[in-house]
């Protein structure tokens, strides 16, 4: 059961029970939809981008503990980041979870480190990365819903 604790850390439960930035944002200028039909996980990401920086980030949706906590932690981490920094964070996070850093040295993910246990559970990687793929879509301004399945 110990490895379950690596996946389900207290911080994750906390963010699952009380997700941060979980609201529909009025005045968002970037939004994107994420949907994993096999799991039924679904979320909408809202960003308010001002002067090339993410002034505000929020999400709404429903999903498992991992996907909800990941979205919650992500929106916290995004605030104040430039679009380039957000893009780099996406790459770093994705590389860590999928264990594919393309040879680059692992980056310290700060508070997001609590999600690194997901890499031990290959079937759950898509849960942790859904919000991030949705972020990527919002940054690229893709009009269509994205999936991590």
């Amino acid at each position: 059961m110990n490895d379950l604790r690596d996946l389900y850390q207290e911080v994750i439960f906390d963010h699952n029970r009380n997700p941060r930035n979980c609201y529909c944002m009025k005045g968002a200028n970037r939004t994107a939809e994420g949907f994993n039909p096999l799991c039924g996980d679904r979320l909408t990401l809202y960003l308010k981008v001002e002067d090339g920086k993410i002034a505000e980030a929020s999400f709404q949706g429903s999903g498992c503990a991992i996907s909800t906590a990941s979205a919650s932690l992500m929106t916290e981490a995004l605030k104040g980041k430039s679009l380039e920094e957000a893009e780099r964070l996406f790459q770093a996070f994705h590389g860590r979870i999928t264990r594919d850093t393309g040879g680059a040295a692992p980056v310290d993910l700060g508070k997001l480190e609590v999600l690194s246990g997901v890499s031990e559970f290959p079937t759950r990687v898509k849960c942790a990365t859904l919000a991030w793929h949705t972020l990527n879509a919002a940054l690229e301004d893709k009009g269509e819903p994205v999936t991590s399945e």
Partner: protein
Amino acid sequence: MSGVKKPVERRLRGEAVPALDVARIRADFPILDQQVYGKPLVYLDNAATTQKPRAVIDAVTRYYEHDNSNVHRGVHALSQRATEEYEGVREKVRAFLNARSVRELVFVRGATEAINLVAATFGRMRVREGGEILLTEMEHHSNIVPWQLLAEQTGAVLKVVPITDSGELVMEEFERLLGPRTRLVAVAHLSNALGTINPVRRIIGLAHAQGVPVLLDGAQAAPHIRVDVQDLDCDFYAFSGHKLYGPTGIGVLYGKEKWLEDMPPYQGGGEMIRQVSFKRSTYSDIPAKFEAGTPNIAGAIGLGAAIDYVQAIGLDAIAAHEHSVLEYALAAAEEVPGMRVVGCARAKASILSFVLERIHPHDIGTILDRQGLAVRVGHHCAMPVMEHYCLPATARASFAVYNTREEVDVLMAGIRKVREVFGQ
């Protein structure tokens, strides 16, 4: 709890079905004897696919070691043996479904291909613009999408019979929707997401009274309910071998001879032709007309062994055993705080779909997995069912002949553990 068990006991007494020696049955399934994450495997994902008894594994191996050859086209000994075995399975399937003739049985990849075959041939022959195909809200995607494709090609319309919150068909709606435009009724015999056994006899009676043929999707029912296609009088019946303890990639379409005779071929190629020229080809008699190309010979032989295995135990005995396990599980589920069973039809078999308060099914699946428990989580290829209950997904335990009440106890302890991990 006792109130729930009584009907089963009565049924068991009434039908005088002998109790199964489940320990002996379990010993027939080599895969069950293993540990997962250091815990004994408890395999409860039988609605997705069942495990295979030694007899099936051996039949496939024996075929490849001794008889492997192409069927219907060789004069040599091996081809003759392979052909005899392959066609012998058709007779086993005939007896299993009590079809009139082996001519009514087409080997396909599985129930999905069987339904696609009917949609592509019978559907295109019979369905025109404005015609209606009557389905139900509880269908598996494989009994929805082939009809959607047909509707797109022909301009036909899909009509959907709704379900109640307990997971039963609203039969008044069925009667209302069944009309002069209805060209075909396609219904699951047993719902894979809810476990509901549909009143197929009544459905067929009502449909036939209006001259409408009925296809039954028997993918879930075939391993759990004794099927007699003559008694049911269904026009088509589809099932998959791998849910019946047989190999993957083999299944059966039963079709009444009169329909199969009329239907155009499904795929073109070898085996299904009588004569080919560039001007025109003529086709084989049924069922070969629908079996283009070299078939899944080993799969069919494995299916034959699976049918022998099931018949030796007896479907009534299997159904009674599974029912007692299901009733036990339903009663145990009531004792788990926050656990809600989805699908409480009065006639129900083998499936325990459930959700836990404030815990997503995917989290349930992962935590159960680490305890050696294999269950399915997700939409079970029945997204309209999930939509009906406003659920993104459910967890589903599904039982087979080798499952026991002790395994249900392990499942319930596992579910309590899920709640504990989530601090509930």
